């Protein structure tokens, strides 16, 4: 490692020699880091609104918010894991798992069901983190494995069919039933959580510790920080937020099944996190911008359909827009090497 570390140039010649490695801190760049995701979303939204004014008047924003809500939660969880330099491929599977568990417990346990569910999935997430931190298994490989295990678990407990939240559905109804300034409560839940995470990263020692881990884990380790536990926390948060997303699934559909609503949140989640300016290298994350990341990712298919792109071409558009959006907003890490 030394060899690579030593490559850092003396400060006398800033790494900005070719402008690429400009550290996040330099003003203009920083301003873009702050507003980039918002600007990109605004631009896309405006584009759709111009091409289809009806989209705006027809409550397009509200529909967008509904779709963005689940993506946002998954993306926030993913961002926390990315922030400590790992990745969680299993969080979408956790969403489904949580939804199924919730659907099955909602009847018998009532109000307790969500609590129990969240506790369970938080533990699952923590387990992921534990294996990564203490088992020293690369998160990519580990969560790829847990992904399979969780899928199986969902199939087994749901008996491979659709599970309906028969009783106490009203407990979750408000999430989509009630609206604030025209947007469903579910979305605001996500926004509040985003702000919370932002404050956590910025104003707490643990948050700063996580940032340190993401930027240079060895350095953090030699500073006597609980780097391993920070990872566990990050993964646990990912699980927890996935659990909340699972609640939204039930609130939205009243039922869950292994391949149904929510089973395909993994890629949108990652995309949203990165469009939201999260550096895949870790240590650079702005949860608030992920709100716009999620909105952007949710907007692309809706917008494409709204402006009437032929169905066959829509996933093509999706791919291109995501690439472009990321190219514009991504947090290019603290180093020039991009992998």
């Amino acid at each position, binding site marked *: 490692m030394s060899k690579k570390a030593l490559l850092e140039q003396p400060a006398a010649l800033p*790494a900005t020699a070719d402008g690429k490695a400009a550290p996040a801190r330099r003003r203009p760049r920083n301003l873009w880091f702050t507003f980039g995701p918002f600007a990109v979303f605004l631009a896309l939204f405006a584009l759709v609104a111009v091409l289809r004014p009806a989209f705006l008047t027809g409550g397009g924003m509200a529909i967008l918010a509904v779709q963005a809500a689940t993506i946002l939660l998954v993306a926030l969880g993913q961002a926390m894991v990315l922030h400590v330099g790992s990745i969680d491929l299993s969080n979408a599977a956790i969403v489904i798992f949580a939804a199924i568990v919730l659907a099955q417990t909602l009847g018998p346990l009532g109000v307790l069901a969500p609590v129990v569910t969240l506790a369970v999935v938080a533990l699952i997430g923590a387990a992921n983190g534990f294996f990564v931190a203490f088992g020293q298994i690369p998160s990519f490989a580990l969560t790829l494995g847990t992904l*399979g295990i969780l899928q199986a678990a969902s199939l087994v407990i749901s008996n491979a069919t659709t599970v309906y939240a028969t009783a106490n559905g009203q407990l979750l109804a408000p999430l989509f039933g009630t609206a604030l300034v025209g947007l469903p409560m579910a979305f605001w839940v996500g926004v509040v959580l985003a702000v919370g995470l932002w404050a956590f990263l910025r104003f707490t020692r643990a948050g700063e510790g996580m940032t340190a881990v993401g930027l240079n884990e060895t350095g953090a380790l030699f500073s006597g920080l609980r780097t391993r536990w920070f990872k566990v926390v990050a993964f646990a948060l990912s699980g927890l937020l996935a659990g909340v997303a699972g609640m939204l699934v039930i609130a939205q559909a009243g039922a869950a099944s292994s391949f149904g609503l929510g089973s395909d949140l993994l890629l949108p989640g990652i995309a949203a996190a990165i469009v939201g300016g999260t550096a895949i290298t870790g240590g650079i994350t702005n949860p608030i911008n992920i709100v716009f990341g999620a909105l952007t990712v949710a907007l692309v298919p809706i917008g494409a359909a709204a402006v009437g792109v032929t169905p066959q071409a829509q996933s093509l558009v999706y791919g291109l827009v995501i690439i472009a959006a990321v190219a514009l907003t991504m947090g290019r890490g603290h180093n020039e090497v991009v992998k």
Partner: protein
Amino acid sequence: MTDKDTGTGLLEAAPASSPPPQRTGRFEVRNLGEVLALLGLVAVFAALNPATFLSPENLRTILDQASLPLIIGVGATLVILTGSIDLSVEGVMGAAGMTFVLLTANSRGSADLGPWAIVAGIAVGVCLGLLSGLVHTRLKVPSFIVTLGVWFVGLGIATVLFGDQAIPFLPDGGIKAWPSTLTVGLPNSFLLAAAFVLAGLFVARFTRLGRFTYAIGDSEEISKGNGIPVLRYKLYVFVVAGACSAAGGVLAALKLGAGSATVGIGTLFLTIAAVVIGGTSLGGGKGGILRTAIGVLMLTVLNNGLILSGISPNIQSAVSGTVLIAAVLVATWPHRSRLRIVK
């Protein structure tokens, strides 16, 4: 310029204070762990299903099913050796496969370029690889997200090509029969895959492209300092990967005998899991194509064996997942240290 060993968060840094690895053999099989694991799996399933597992038909099935991930694994390994990753596999397969089917003799009668159809299919893959590579190297977008996007682009192309007409079928006999025909008792599909693996090994060992791939994976900074045109070679690697995926797509289309946008379904995670199980480090620079080949065989044997042993499909993914974790755990256990950084 980097405070950290890894270029991307996904990747695993070298052990901080582990003893230096021993001199490697000619090819990258550093230790026989993977091979033994493979043999172990074979032994177990042979014991569980004495009648069926080792039957020639079944072995052929295994080899035939391994052929796709083997071909794609060659490209995927090269990309991962540079420390990047290529998620676009399934999309590229779809696009290339569809292109091929529509340009060769098919039930839609859209066109018949004969062998040129294959070239066209691969060309599509090369272009998509080029796209990934250019965006990644020039715009400095992490390969993870670029190739994620290209995945959708590829699927989109396939869907557009498919349009809203009937499924294009390949006529019976002729080229369609080729993959399953046996030569010296082995299915052509597997022989093709073997050829790809050997070619890959040659590239990795005897060409600048291959050696520079390792160099870049070890450290892009130092490689630059050594005058290696890092970006250009990364681009090459993505193109090669695109070509491999495309070849896989064409082969898959041949096997299916029809055009399908989802022809690559399930290949991506299978391949990446194989690379990881084989022991190639996601951090780049360490590992090799032969390892991946072994990983592919392990997973194919496992999948096939589970079916033969009548494991319920519901829990099959769990078993594979557990094996993946176990394999990685075993492989990395010796490197454990309180200073080891694992992403």
